[in-house]
């Protein structure tokens, strides 16, 4: 037993009457939160797990005797049965995959760039810039999507700007062409002939559709500000000494950024990418408000597909199965990211000051995860 616990035990012995009262109020105080979270989080997950392996069709209670256990059939429909469900899921996965691949790096770089620019010591009007960059993050995803539908309509503002350069803009939200197909309508047989999850390799490689690209821009626009704040908080916690020392040693600003600042920002970078990944795999609001998965299902996402499968097509088992697969995907991506970005060996001397900076930044990161975890999703 450590000294600390021993001390605590002594203290609690001294006022055992008080501590009995504390035990009671401890549970009383946490009870409302525990009951609500248990009722609307824990039990739902267990019920959905059951539904995902049952043949429930949405009538009556899923716990009634008429509902049967059907094993992995729902998962099979979605993953390997070769039917429409598999093709839809493959399409949704492809769409969201490109969305993640493009949004996460871009929003991270944009957020970091904004933070670095706003954090400059000599900058005037800093408050104004921070407000301007953060404002899109507080507005509702629905309102922003409506605005986006207008900006990216055929006669919208974006196309008006594109027209200045003599180019005719696409009909964004009605354009299903993959941006990496560069206008090609058919590909080599090797790519079009083979499929994964019911989607041809050619389509997998085609990138996001033009419609999805508009959503990608939307995501960068709304989340850049949120993540800028995280980077700003971290930047303000960095000690100026290291930077100063590097400056005295004659390091130029690029060297100072890549060798001094960036390594110290690693924990925040980690947080931002993790939150980005989690948020980006959950695109729902924008699709529900804007395109309903159209055009040609190129803006379908697993989250939206899970919703339509259950609530519109009454295939509750499949909907629940998709939700669980999505959960697994999010976990896997987070783990991959952790491994890829894992701490590489650094010299002892340099490690000294990095850990000191990290310890501080880490405290912020944790709270940020807490905050973002439940409030940041809508914007991602």
């Amino acid at each position, binding site marked *: 037993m450590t000294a600390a616990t021993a001390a605590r035990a002594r203290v609690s012995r001294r006022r055992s009457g008080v501590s009995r009262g504390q035990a009671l109020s*401890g549970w009383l105080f946490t009870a409302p939160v525990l009951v609500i979270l248990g009722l*609307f989080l824990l039990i739902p997950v267990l019920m959905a797990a059951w539904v995902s392996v049952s043949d429930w069709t949405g009538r009556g209670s899923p716990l009634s005797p008429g509902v049967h256990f059907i094993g992995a059939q729902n998962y099979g429909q979605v993953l390997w049965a070769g039917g429409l469900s598999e093709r839809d899921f493959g399409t949704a996965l492809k769409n969201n995959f490109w969305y993640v691949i493009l949004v996460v790096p871009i929003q991270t770089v944009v957020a970091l760039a904004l933070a670095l620019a706003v954090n400059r010591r000599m900058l005037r009007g800093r408050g104004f810039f*921070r407000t301007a960059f953060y404002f899109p993050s507080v507005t509702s995803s629905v309102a922003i999507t409506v605005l986006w539908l207008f900006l990216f309509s055929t006669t919208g503002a974006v196309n008006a700007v594109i027209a200045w350069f003599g180019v005719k803009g696409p009909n964004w939200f009605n354009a299903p062409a993959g941006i990496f197909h560069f206008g090609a309508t058919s590909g080599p047989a090797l790519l079009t002939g083979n499929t994964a999850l019911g989607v041809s390799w050619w389509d997998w490689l085609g990138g996001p559709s033009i419609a999805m690209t508009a959503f990608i821009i939307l995501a960068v626009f709304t989340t850049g500000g949120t993540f800028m704040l995280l980077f700003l908080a971290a930047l*303000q916690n960095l000690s100026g000494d290291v930077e100063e020392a590097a400056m005295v040693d004659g390091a130029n600003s690029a060297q100072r950024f890549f060798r001094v600042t960036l390594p110290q920002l690693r924990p925040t970078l980690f947080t931002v990418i993790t939150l980005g990944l989690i948020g980006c795999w959950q695109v729902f609001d924008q699709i529900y408000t804007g395109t309903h998965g159209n055009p040609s299902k190129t803006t379908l996402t697993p989250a939206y597909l899970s919703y339509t499968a259950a609530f519109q097509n009454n295939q509750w088992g499949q909907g629940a199965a998709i939700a669980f697969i999505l959960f697994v995907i999010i976990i896997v991506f987070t783990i991959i990211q952790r491994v890829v970005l894992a701490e590489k060996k650094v010299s002892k001397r340099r490690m000294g000051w990095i850990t000191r900076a990290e310890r501080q930044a880490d405290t912020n990161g944790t709270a940020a995860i807490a905050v973002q975890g439940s409030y940041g999703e809508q914007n991602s």
Partner: protein
Amino acid sequence: MTTIAVPAVGVDEGTAPKPASRRERWTPGALTAQLLIYVLLIAVAILYIFPFLIDVATSFKTEPDAAANPLSLVPQTWTTAAYQRLFFNSDFPIWFKNSAIVTVLVTAGRVFFDSLAGYALARLHFRGRNVVFAGLIAVMAVPNVVLLIPKFLVINQLSIYDTYAGMIIPLLADAAGVFIMKNFFESIPVSIEEQARIDGAGSFRIFWSVVLPMARPALITIIILSFQGSWNELAHFIVSTQNPDLTTLTKGVAQLASGQLSQGTQYPLKLAAGAIMTIPVAIVFFIFQRRILNASQGAVKE
């Protein structure tokens, strides 16, 4: 966070004893770089603000005007037709009322329950405290979207589908809020509570009249986050209601966007709806701006 409030001049004075670095900063190259930064920042700021200006401007335009001049910030003919239609000729007031009810109750509930639980986890010694805390952390890891179907199942099972109870109760507690409050309570000194305890005050009494008044900064953080979170919430209301009388702004405007009110693009109408639903969060944002912009920090520090 004081550095932000200090104007550039003040910072300059602080570094004045180091003439070397000062000279370095004002070389022509540095000056150009500084100018370039300003130009870039202003360009990006315009890019960020302009869409919202377009939103407001378009809401006062006629439909042909909106289509013909998408970039113009001045309507050719000013019209409030969109707003009149929304307020006097649609369900918009009902949506607004529902959003307001839900947001107020959810925010009040979260502030109370989160701080109560946060206090218990930070200060009260009871068996199972660590388990409760670990559970909360685990809960935060479950993605919201995965819960869409499950939540509906339980709400349905409890027969609170299509009721205010079903819309509000599931949102009343959030693990992240508890986490923020716990962190805050751990950062304030125990001595004051000890004093009250010796004077014979019970746990709830200490919490309510001693600790809570000191927790203002953290409470404001919770208020901001809850307000914003519940006002902007969409998915939960989709799965917990279908009665038009219980439609919230987010759900209503989302349906409006898919063209439920009538045919045509109706952009002035939709953008007016979007603009109005942004106003309450914008007000909260501007009132608490300093706190929000420091929110990610304020939660742990102080």
